[in-house]
């Protein structure tokens, strides 16, 4: 026991007994401090105090031990409760013990009290310690449980995170796998050391025709013919040693679908130490592309060949078809000169000449369209004063219009100085076509109106007529070649090429052409880019009437075509002062030129022995012949040709079929003057 006094709450009404008990305990060596209560109120009040033990009498004048025990048990169940009584019987004592009293001492046997107190204190102490121990155990248990719970929770969280990571990893892996597998290119990975395949995607399997199970763990030597395998492995070595990407273009590989051409890019994949661990390769199957390129090359060759053939056809049409046309037109013109013919015969001949003229127009138009199609149309684009061209066209077509009392008017007021970027001759051709149509497909006594306007950098010309117009259903066919929209049934002559050609020419001149729907008649328009520049147009010499006297002298005609020779013979029969020599080969012609020294040489370019150009060159070089004027009569109407021979020294270039009056005028110009014309 410690030296701290035992604090005792003593319920005792008798002060003597109380003193006795205190003395007794003191005497037994128990240091005690007593607080005595004698009533219920005192007891209750003291019960909250700091005590180690309650000693209680059984019977008090205003209170009793049983009630006190009950109160103490309710309020201070830890405090030992010892009855000290002189009246308490054995039975009651046992009952109280059963109700929780620690002990009981009869006043008659107070000598037991110190032992009973000590034991009660001891038991209380033991109980307290046990309670503390139990509390500690409970606390520890609780703490442990909390820790276990916390740990369990942490583990659950960690597990959940792990599961999430695994799921993410799985998703990521599945995504990468899917990418690799769905890549439309062959992708493969090899071990950098063993060169065995460790991965190949589906495109690779398909391309090579080898299932991946058969590829993985194998090298190129196991899979491909030696020459291909060695080449593949050589580039692998290059990759491993060089540590740099390798690009292999156009290499071949044998597959079940035959030899394929691949373009492969290989890259080393390094490990942590910077050494190649794997070789990654991506191959693009370029077989189809190569085939397509080859096919395209072939197609280009084919197209070139077709173009050459077409050009060739053009030159043939130009020359070959013109030769008989020349004869037809020439002889028809010649026949018209015959003074003995009656009106009916003259009419017949006019039909022949018109037929020839239409043929010529058709051939020219077909050739122009072909030139446009093959990109061989040569244009001389320059600023053109549009109103001059318009008036030229109107002057040309006025006789035709007047023959049917059709009025042609031009509205160019305020725009007479308007210039367009165009080829003057081709613009003239387009307008002759449009205005010609407006006249041809018009009613007698109708009107044709031409309007010129310059606006916003564009030059627009409208050609309107008062004819029957074009049915709306047929306007889509307007610019198609050989499409005459039913006019072929009528009496108006035409080739059906005019508008198609006009469209082609306009487009070639960076212009446009169109049809305008109007309530009455037909209206076409063309549009060109306006030119800010002014350009002096050369005045047209054509159409001027020659008043030159008929020439006299000798003419040498070098020509192999007998009809043409005969035509000229017949023509010159109308020029008695002219003597004609002829030669059917180039060399014969040159010899004749040297011998006869003619006043004029007429030279065909297509000769059986040497090209006419060569004869022209010889004539120009030779001092005996260089001053003789040479006039080229050619059936070749292709552009540029005339320019070349004129540069080579020819005085003039006449295209067959010949306009006989022009030829005669040209001869008169170059021969010595003779008699006056009739």
């Amino acid at each position, binding site marked *: 026991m410690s030296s701290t006094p035992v604090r005792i709450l003593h319920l005792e009404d008798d002060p003597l007994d109380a003193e006795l008990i205190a003395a007794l305990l003191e005497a037994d060596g128990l240091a005690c401090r007593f607080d005595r209560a004698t009533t219920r109120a005192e007891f209750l009040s003291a019960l909250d105090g700091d005590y180690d033990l309650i000693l209680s009498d059984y019977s008090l004048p205003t209170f009793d031990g049983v009630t006190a025990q009950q109160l103490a048990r309710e309020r201070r169940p830890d405090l030992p409760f010892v009855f000290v009584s002189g009246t308490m019987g054995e039975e009651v004592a046992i009952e109280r013990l059963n109700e929780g009293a620690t002990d009981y001492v009869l006043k008659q046997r107070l000598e037991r009290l110190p032992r009973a107190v000590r034991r009660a204190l001891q038991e209380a102490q033991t109980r307290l310690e046990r309670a503390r121990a139990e509390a500690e155990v409970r606390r520890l248990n609780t703490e442990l449980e909390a820790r276990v719970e916390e740990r369990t929770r942490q583990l659950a969280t960690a597990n959940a995170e792990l599961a999430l990571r695994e799921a993410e990893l799985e998703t990521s892996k599945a995504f990468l796998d899917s990418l690799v597998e769905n890549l439309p290119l062959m992708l493969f990975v090899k071990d950098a050391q063993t060169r065995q395949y460790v991965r190949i995607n589906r495109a690779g399997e398909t391309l090579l025709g080898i299932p991946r199970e058969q590829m993985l763990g194998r090298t190129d030597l196991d899979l491909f013919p030696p020459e291909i395998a060695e080449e593949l492995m050589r580039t692998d070595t290059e990759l491993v040693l060089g540590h740099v990407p390798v690009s292999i273009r156009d290499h071949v590989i044998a597959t079940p679908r035959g030899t394929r051409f691949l373009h492969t890019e290989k890259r080393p994949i390094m490990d942590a130490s910077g050494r190649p661990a794997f070789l990654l390769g991506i191959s693009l199957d370029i077989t189809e592309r190569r085939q397509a390129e080859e096919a395209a090359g072939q197609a280009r060759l084919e197209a070139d060949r077709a173009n050459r053939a077409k050009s060739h056809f053009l030159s043939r049409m130009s020359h070959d078809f013109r030769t008989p046309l020349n*004869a037809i037109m020439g002889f028809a013109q*010649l026949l018209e000169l*015959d003074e003995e013919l009656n009106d009916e015969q003259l009419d*017949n001949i006019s039909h*022949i000449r018109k037929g020839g003229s239409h043929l010529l127009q058709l051939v020219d138009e077909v050739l122009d369209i*072909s030139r446009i199609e093959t990109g061989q149309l040569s244009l001389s684009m320059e600023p053109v004063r549009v109103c001059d061209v318009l008036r030229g066209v109107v002057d040309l077509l006025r006789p035709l219009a007047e023959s049917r009392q059709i009025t042609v008017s031009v509205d160019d007021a305020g725009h007479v100085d308007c210039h367009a970027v165009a080829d003057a001759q081709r613009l003239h051709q387009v307008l002759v076509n449009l205005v010609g149509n407006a006249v041809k497909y018009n009613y007698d006594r109708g009107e044709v109106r031409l309007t010129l306007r310059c606006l916003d950098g564009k030059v627009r010309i409208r050609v309107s007529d008062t004819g029957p117009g074009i049915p709306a259903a047929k306007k889509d066919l307007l610019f198609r*070649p*050989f499409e005459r929209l039913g006019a072929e049934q009528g009496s108006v002559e035409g080739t059906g090429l005019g508008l198609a050609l006009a469209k082609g020419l306009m487009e070639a001149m960076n212009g446009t052409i169109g049809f305008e729907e109007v309530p009455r008649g037909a209206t076409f328009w063309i549009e060109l880019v306006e030119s800010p520049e002014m350009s002096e147009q050369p005045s047209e010499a054509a159409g001027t009437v020659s008043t030159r006297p008929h020439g006299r002298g000798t003419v040498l005609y070098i020509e192999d075509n007998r009809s043409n020779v005969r*035509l000229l013979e017949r023509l010159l029969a109308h020029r008695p002062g002219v003597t004609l020599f002829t030669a059917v080969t180039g060399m014969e012609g040159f010899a004749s030129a040297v011998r006869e020294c003619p006043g004029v040489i007429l030279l065909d370019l297509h000769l059986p022995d040497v090209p006419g150009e060569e004869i022209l060159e010889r004539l120009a070089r030779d001092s005996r012949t260089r001053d003789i004027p040479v006039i080229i009569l050619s059936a070749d109407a292709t552009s540029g040709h005339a320019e070349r021979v004129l540069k080579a020294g020819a005085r003039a270039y006449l295209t067959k079929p010949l306009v006989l009056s022009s030829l005669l005028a040209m001869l008169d110009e170059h021969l010595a003057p003779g008699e006056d014309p009739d």
Partner: protein
Amino acid sequence: MPENDQPGREGKLVLDRSAEHTLRNHLSVIHGFCDVMQSEIDPSHSLQEDLLEIRKAARAALAILNETRRV
């Protein structure tokens, strides 16, 4: 037409059937009027030779046309 040339197929692209038809029409008109005139004038008339030239030329043109079609 010279034998070594093969313009036909490509030529056809250009010389469409319609154009060929028109060409034939004009040539037959020319041919026809020559026939008429030749039959109407005296066989010994100097014009006969000129008309013959025109007929020959029309035939030559027709031959070129046929050649183009044949290839």
